[in-house]
């Protein structure tokens, strides 16, 4: 990864070191010049300048690391030690390699620098021809903690800079992913559709293993396994497949498993892995057992698809959360705004009606009031629709049935419900969209059809589902003005990969039929 190399932040601090080095050297020179009366032989100053030049050149040529800083420290310290007591003025220069040490290798770099500095000075002091007086030794001592402190400052700066680039990198990665996701989702709506991806994954396994029946199941937070795609066989085996020990084994071990099935053939379970997590499994019932090699090949081929599938599921979930938030906001806005204003307008009309002297204006006010009440009722229903969700504990069938009964009884419609739900659930995003399509269809019946009966049929057998809303009203002809509502229903259906059919009922009225992955031979 390119992000492991030197980072701009990193470079900036090293540049500071490169500037500080000649700066401190100049300071040492200036101090020496000021005290030139006491200086007999400034050879150590020349030596320090040579060290500084070497270190400066090395810093440019080599990657920044602790050995250079330590070497610079050791060399400078030995020179200072040898040149004592006059070289006392050269001590400030040691702060440069001290800072560099901390910058290069954190606290251990600071410690190493201090060690090298102390040792270097001691070596220098020992090597000098004449021993040093105690007073000079004492005056050097405070510099040791000062060098260590400077090293720590370097270490602290290093910490700051290594933390920030990491975050920046992460945001950068997230930003890139999201931008890509936006482009992908705009260009190919099929590219991020979990159902299409799941079917592609399953088809691959299904055809390669010659399976009798197969299914792809994913797990979502707080829920049991949700079937996303299914091939062959009826639906009853799926419920048992979920509790199959083989599935659980493959899930927890993150490796494909195979075992003889009780009645006939064998069952393969291939986990869908993303990194070191399992997001789902493919269960396939086959005639002949698969070899471990074959299993491993299957698992490898599904890994790539698993990442795409999880991304698609995440994308769907995020979109659903955003949709729900926006609907709530819209409900609040209608409730607090236009609805209240219309209600107060209604009260004003009531007043007008009460004050009207002649029969003509009174009947006009009554008509007006009826119209306002009707629009207000529609608004109240809209707010109700915008606020309703599929509850966690009951499925789409129960939720839509409750809605139909409520709306039906308020509008004098006789509601006929048939609903069949298996204990498995659809994905929450799919449930939400199906509920909204159902609500829209029922709202259309309530508003426009002058129907007496409303039939709502919900059949859920994940991943298949079917919602049918029928009425005995006026039929499609008069609905032209509600084209917009129909378009929204079609858009919602497309989003979850469902087929929407709107047609005249043979006996009169309209039928709205949404079906999702209903395969032939399956009612």
């Amino acid at each position: 990864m390119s992000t492991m190399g030197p980072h701009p932040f990193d470079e900036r601090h090293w540049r500071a070191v490169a500037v500080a080095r000649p700066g401190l050297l100049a300071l040492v020179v200036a101090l020496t010049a000021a005290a030139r009366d006491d200086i007999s032989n400034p050879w150590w100053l020349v030596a320090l300048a040579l060290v500084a030049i070497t270190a400066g050149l090395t810093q440019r040529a080599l990657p920044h690391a602790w050995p250079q800083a330590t070497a610079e420290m050791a060399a400078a310290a030995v020179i200072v030690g040898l040149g004592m007591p006059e070289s006392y003025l050269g001590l400030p220069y040691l702060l440069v390699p001290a800072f560099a040490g901390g910058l290069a290798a954190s606290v251990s770099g600071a410690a190493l620098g201090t060690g090298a500095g102390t040792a270097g000075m001691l070596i220098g002091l020992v090597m000098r021809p004449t021993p040093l007086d105690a007073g000079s030794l004492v005056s050097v001592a405070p510099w040791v903690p000062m060098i260590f402190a400077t090293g720590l400052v370097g270490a602290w700066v290093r910490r700051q800079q290594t933390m920030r680039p990491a975050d920046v990198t992460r945001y950068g990665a997230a930003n890139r992913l999201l931008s890509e996701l936006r482009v992908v989702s705009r260009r190919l709506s099929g590219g991020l559709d979990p159902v299409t991806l799941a079917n592609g994954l399953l088809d691959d396994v299904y055809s390669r293993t010659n399976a009798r029946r197969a299914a792809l199941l994913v797990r979502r937070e707080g829920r049991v396994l949700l079937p996303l795609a299914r091939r062959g066989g009826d639906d009853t085996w799926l419920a048992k497949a979920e509790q199959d020990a083989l599935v659980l084994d493959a899930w927890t071990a993150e490796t494909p498993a195979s075992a003889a099935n009780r009645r006939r053939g064998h069952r393969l379970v291939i986990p869908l892995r993303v990194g070191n997590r399992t997001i789902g499994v493919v269960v396939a019932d086959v005639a002949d057992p698969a070899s471990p090699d074959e299993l491993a090949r299957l698992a490898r081929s599904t890994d790539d698809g698993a990442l795409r599938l999880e991304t698609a599921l995440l994308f769907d979930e995020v979109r659903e959360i955003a949709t729900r938030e926006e609907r709530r906001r819209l409900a609040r806005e209608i409730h607090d705004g236009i609805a209240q204003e219309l209600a107060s307008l209604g009260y004003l009309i009531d007043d007008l009606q009460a004050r009207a002297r002649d029969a003509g204006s009174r009947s006009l006010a009554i008509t007006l009031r009826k119209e306002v009440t009707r629009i207000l009722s529609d608004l109240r229903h809209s707010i109700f629709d915008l606020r309703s969700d599929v509850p966690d504990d009951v499925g789409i069938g129960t939720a839509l049935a409750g809605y139909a009964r409520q709306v039906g009884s308020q509008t004098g419609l006789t509601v006929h419900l048939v609903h069949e739900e298996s204990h498995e659930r659809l994905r929450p995003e799919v449930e939400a969209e199906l509920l909204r399509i159902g609500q829209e269809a029922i709202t259309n019946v309530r508003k426009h059809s002058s129907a007496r009966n409303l039939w709502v049929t919900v059949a859920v057998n994940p991943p298949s589902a079917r919602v049918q809303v029928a009425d005995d009203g006026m039929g499609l002809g008069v609905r032209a003005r509600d084209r917009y509502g129909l378009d929204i229903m079609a858009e919602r259906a497309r989003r979850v990969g469902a087929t929407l059919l709107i047609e005249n009922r043979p006996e009169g009225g309209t039928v709205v039929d949404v079906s999702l992955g209903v395969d032939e031979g399956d009612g």
Partner: protein
Amino acid sequence: MPATVLLVDDHDLIRQGLRRAFERDAEFSVAGEAGTLAEAKMLAETLRPDVCVIDVRLPDGNGLELAQKLREARSDVGIVVLTMYAGDEQMFAALDAGASAFVPKSAPSDDVVAAARHAAAKPTSFVADDLAAAMHRRLNPTGPQLTRREREVLDLLAEGLGVASIARKLYISESTTKTHVSKLYDKLGAANRAQAIMAAVRAGLLDDTDGE
């Protein structure tokens, strides 16, 4: 002496409209108006109105909370809950809070005055437009849920067929048919065929308008 009313709603125009409606009626006089929960609590204590008309959604809290506080403090205060929200939950929440009446904001102001009249006379009873139907829905939260097979059996039962004929028609054994029938009775809370059909019609499972 006219009954005193306290109007609680955060919308000026709504309060004005309601005030005019109450002033048209000789039985009532508007004692005060409040736009917030806090204001309403204070006025309810100082004015001690006979009836409070309260909107559910207030800027600083829920009107139902106020209703509950008022009811706890006084059993003789009439409480009319006004709401823009549709749905049974709101109505039952108002009932639980101790309201005397529940009126949607789409209803004419005369309905609000009528509800206030009831509330003043019988503060501890409860009236609402859709109460009976809502009670029915609450007692049968989802309606009976029949499987496809049970549904077929029910249709044939309604046509007057016996167990043996149903079994033949559906290509299933008589004992299986009997199981379906007894499950059907269970779900519909019926003891016999006639009760089952009646219950199914009530639940909207069978079409009683059909001649067949």
